[in-house]
């Protein structure tokens, strides 16, 4: 933990009070706080200290790191070098091998009880040898690193809920961070990958206020995951009017009608894509003409075809997940039970997507 405050550092760089206030204004927006909170953000940042951050990457595709490094608000350089002391990230750091592991151990030793651990990727339990770093299994590295951490952030659906590695039949016995870390504050930032500004927004909240934001029952910050894609979707009015695209090239699709009938998972997906968008707010999947895949929800890979409407049952799994939601039970819990009981049959039920999936009429004909 640096002894210098962020304000001290900014002043040393010749940044004016105006510049600091502008930075606070951008951060307030980034954290999805109301603009009236800007003075509170400025007051908190005046005394904020840079925490040490250890970033662990396990069974992942590096998409989450790619997403974060494309976050432009304010800038990733500013976030990493001004706001946090990123002491270990084996993809981004220059050091490798023994030197890299020494950096992690040094940061843990110097900042005992105060450092932040960020994890992307799931952790294999069936055979620890499935994924190792410097000869250390993921589960051992996680337990050792988290032991004296202040808080843990699980970035991406793999770290938050198991993600793709956890999909049936879960060949590596992949589990989420939350299944192993029970005694530390844990924030889940799911998404495949998460919206970059959501990752940096949650980090900014922690760095600014030194606390974790309010979370929902799945451990997600409510400020970003509090509303469904469906509720914030600009195509919602077409859903309400009953105007749906029935294939990806029909009149409804060209007119921008609702994609629900083409499998959009917006009604059951909680994320901030509809407002924050992607690629510097250029667009997001629904605006590009494709339904939401539901990537920030537990077990979205196993929740049936991406191109079947939610109203059409898609095997036992979808039914069970639907009942669980109706009963207020975490989908992940049901998914875990289903995984164990149907591990063998999952492979045979898995149906590849064909061109016929892209049209409601063809789907209906098949079912008929």
């Amino acid at each position, binding site marked *: 933990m640096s002894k210098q405050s962020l304000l001290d550092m900014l002043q040393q760089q010749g940044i004016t*009070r105006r*510049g600091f*206030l502008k930075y606070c204004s951008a951060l307030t927006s980034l954290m999805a706080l109301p*603009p009236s909170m800007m003075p509170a953000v400025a007051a908190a940042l005046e005394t904020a200290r840079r925490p040490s951050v250890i970033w662990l990457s396990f069974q992942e595709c590096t998409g989450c790191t790619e997403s974060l490094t494309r976050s*432009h608000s304010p800038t990733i350089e500013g976030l990493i070098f001004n706001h946090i002391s990123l002491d270990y990230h084996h993809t981004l750091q220059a050091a490798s091998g023994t030197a890299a592991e020494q950096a992690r151990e040094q940061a843990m030793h110097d900042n005992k009880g105060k450092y932040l651990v960020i994890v992307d990727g799931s952790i294999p339990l069936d055979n620890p040898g499935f994924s190792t770093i410097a000869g250390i299994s993921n589960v051992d590295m996680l337990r050792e690193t988290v032991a004296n951490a202040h808080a843990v952030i699980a970035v991406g659906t793999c770290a938050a809920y198991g993600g793709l590695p956890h999909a049936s039949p879960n060949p590596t016995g992949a589990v989420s961070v939350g299944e192993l870390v029970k005694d530390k504050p844990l924030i889940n930032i799911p998404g495949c990958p998460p919206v970059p500004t959501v990752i940096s927004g949650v980090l900014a909240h922690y760095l600014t206020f030194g606390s974790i934001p309010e979370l929902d029952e799945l451990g997600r910050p409510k400020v970003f995951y509090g509303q469904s894609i469906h509720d914030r*979707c*600009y195509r919602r009015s077409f859903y309400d009017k009953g105007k749906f695209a029935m294939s990806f090239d029909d009149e409804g699709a060209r007119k921008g009608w609702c994609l629900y009938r083409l499998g959009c998972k917006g009604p059951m997906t909680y994320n901030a894509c509809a407002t*924050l968008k992607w690629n510097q707010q250029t667009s997001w999947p629904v605006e590009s003409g494709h339904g939401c895949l539901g990537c920030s929800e537990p077990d979205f890979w196993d929740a049936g075809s991406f191109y079947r409407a939610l109203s059409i049952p898609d095997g036992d799994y979808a039914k069970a997940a639907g009942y669980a939601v109706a009963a207020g039970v975490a989908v992940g819990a049901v998914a875990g039970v289903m995984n164990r009981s149907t591990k063998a049959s999952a492979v045979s039920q898995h149906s590849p997507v064909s061109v016929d999936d892209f049209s409601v009429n063809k789907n209906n004909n098949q079912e008929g």
Partner: protein
Amino acid sequence: MQHLSDIKIAVDNPSLETGNLPGILSEIEQALEELLNSKQVHRIDLRAMPWSAGEEHKLEQMLGRGEVTIELNALGKSIFQETRYSGVWLISHYNEAEELIGKIIEISYLPDMVFAQQEDISRGLERLKTQRSQDS
């Protein structure tokens, strides 16, 4: 071409609207009344709103451009544009890479950030005194 924003996109589909535009205009109207009656400043973060393609541009066109434009250069450019409705400011913050990092509508007499700040005045005064002592 350096940025995505360099790709010019013209959206021509007025049927796609979120319905948020009338709500924002109503909020601005109420905020202007509060500014007149109690000098209450109000800010609206446009990035927190869902917009369809082209809808935000339509809002900007409706607000129009007023008499005052202020450019601030601190950690990248910021533009404070008074709209045709006096007291309604459209504020765009850019980072040093000229990427938009914040867009706010502020209802105030003058945005706070434009005023010279106490700390900056103090430091400027020190610099001036140092400069004069070196010159003499």
